[in-house]
């Protein structure tokens, strides 16, 4: 999916410092490559944005400004698309992005109660990231898994038929994984 040349992407990743926006001199050539790979295709804006977000975990505002200029799409339209889709984020996200589905089926089968339980457990609200940068919480609008409602996604993993009482266990599993990762790094 990432269509930028590898050494440019490596350079970009190296330039990323926690808590800082990516360096423009590293970021923009990568965006140029991504845009070029979609050249001539109508409706390329969303895949371009997806590619950038997959790479960085979020969409820094300057990346949107640059996309607007390079693709000759008004900035208001670019931000309109970004702010419409809950998948896109303009804020850096935690290691684990928890998205609770609020689509009709999940909502009816208790999605909101699941969301409240997660909010309590993590001490953060929708759109926020925990202080230790481990978890971000967002709501989604239907992941297309209505038969498994209510659904919670953690990064790319779908958790089905989640009950509020099982939320603590679910989160603990990721906290443990995070701790193990940290230990391994040390």
């Amino acid at each position, binding site marked *: 999916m990432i269509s930028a040349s590898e050494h440019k992407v490596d350079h970009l990743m190296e330039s990323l410092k926690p808590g800082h926006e990516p360096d423009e001199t590293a970021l923009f050539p990568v965006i140029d490559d991504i845009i070029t790979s979609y050249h001539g295709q109508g409706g390329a804006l969303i895949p371009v944005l997806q590619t950038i977000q997959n790479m960085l975990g979020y969409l820094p505002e300057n990346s949107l400004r640059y996309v607007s200029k390079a693709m000759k799409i008004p900035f208001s339209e670019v931000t*309109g698309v970004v702010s419409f889709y809950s998948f896109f984020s303009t804020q850096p996200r935690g290691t684990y992005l928890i998205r609770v589905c609020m689509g009709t089926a999940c909502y009816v089968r208790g999605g909101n109660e699941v969301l409240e339980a997660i909010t309590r457990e993590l001490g953060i609200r929708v759109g926020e990231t925990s202080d230790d940068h481990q978890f971000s919480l967002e709501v989604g609008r239907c992941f297309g898994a209505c038969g498994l409602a209510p659904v919670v996604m953690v990064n790319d993993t779908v958790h089905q038929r989640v009950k509020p009482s099982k939320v603590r266990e679910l989160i603990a599993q990721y906290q443990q994984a995070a701790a193990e990762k940290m230990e391994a790094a040390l």
Partner: protein
Amino acid sequence: MVDITINGLPCKAREGITILTAAKEAGFTIPTLCFLEGTTPQGACRACVVEVEGFAALAASCSTPVNNGMVIHTNTKRVRNARRDVVELMLSEHSGDCQTCVRSTDCELLTLAQNLGIRNISFTGESLKNTIDSSTPALSRDPGKCIKCRRCVTICHDIQHVGAISAQFRGYDTVIGPAFSRPMDSVACVQCGQCAAVCPTGSITEITHIEAVWKAIDDPARHVVVQTAPAIRAALGECFGYEPGTLVTGKMVTALREIGFDAVFDTNFTADLTIIEEGSELLKRLEDALVHGKEVALPQYTSCSPGWIKYAEYFHPEILPNISSCKSPQQMFGALAKTYYAQKIGVDPADMTVVSIMPCTAKKFEAQRPEMNSSGYQDVDYVLTTRELGDMIKMAGIDFLSLPDQKMDAPFGISTGAADIFANTGGVMEAALRTVYALVTGRILPAEGLHIKPLAGLEGIKTAEVTLTDTVDRWRFLEGVTARVAVAHGLGNASELIERIKETGEVFHFIEVMTCPGGCIGGGGQPRFTTDDVRRARIDAIYREDEGRELRQSHDNPYITQIYEEFLKSPLGEKSHHLLHTTYEERETVEML
């Protein structure tokens, strides 16, 4: 043609047209809100729903094409209830202040609610917040009154190619505005006000200068002069119930005197002056290129329309050297009022207030450009739109319909027919050619009625050719030259023309650009609602005004001769350079943070 039935009446309809158009042609009225003539239908508001036999759901008539055999009902219980529900839902979140709203007399939402007989709102819920954004000089935005019809988005993107505003966020949180709903001054908005012209409610309006103007008038120490743009006289009457295209020049002058202005002048005077300066500039560019072999920027573009100037500064900085350095007629007027006229009548320019009546919102922006102070003061203090003047006349208790006609004051109230036609697309070019042709050949422009037919009308891009023969000695280098000119109105058309020239290398010498569709008569500050029919009616009126004049060429204006003799000395001279010409700056469309 297809056969359809509307409310039991069999009709023929052209293939491909919408139910809305077919119904209108058959004489049935369907209410609309988001519908905007000449643009792709949004189908956003659902106020125009109708019942089509065989369709499970109601159809939005603005975006449903007719099919052969279609049986349509525009007035059933189901339709009436659905429309009422739709509008009640809008009203339930609309934060209106209908008694005091500037749009209370022409609000399309209010009118529709009345027409649907809504007497109570059955839905309760959260109301939108009134967060007024008045960060730009010309336009004010209040999302609390917005019904998300997206007419403003359509006109800003599709017609003007500016794209300053779009829908941001989602669902109930949707806001129509700049990126992330930030203030308007953070984005590339050209202030043309076409958004305000098409807004059905009071959500986008001009920033008013009415109170400031009253304050100046009420101050006996101030000498308050007013200038009226050419396009006002063909539209102001609409504020008082006259048909579009009714000329009210004489009544307008009387009303301005009754309001209390100390002198009533005409922007037409400086439109004539613009022709002399801009025509001389064009001839100088041609002479530099053809005689002296210099590198000069051609074609020359006109500079009267401040929205176009700001647009070029943002989106086409490469052609800034091609844009005439002439200030717009409004700004030439301000600079001369506070110098030449102030000296003439012995008034300290510090005690003078210059007010403009403009069909335009971008003129409010232009008057505040920091370089527009060559008199030593802000040259134009306040700008009122045609609509605001209409409001002031009402506030003054003036019975406009029964006013007698009066004439403008000398010296700045005297003008020619060439100045009148600055109001419409093609007009500045025609006026310029009348004078340039006469200067170069010593003869009157050989065009029937002095009109250049291919430049008239509402076609987006128009071109014409004029061959110069039997030239006078001074301009002999132009002998046999065919001048090619182009005209574009609406910024999307201007952009298209610029790109076309870049791609094809097509040669033009002079290009007129007006920001708004139809030119100033369709400006963002004109009485609502401006359709193509209204544009045509106003343009016809402007041509009538021109044709009724004794003098129809700018260089025939005796007061223009006088001001050069007494004050300016010569076109493009030192004084002109200082007072009548300006410079432009490149602006970033999207600035990196």
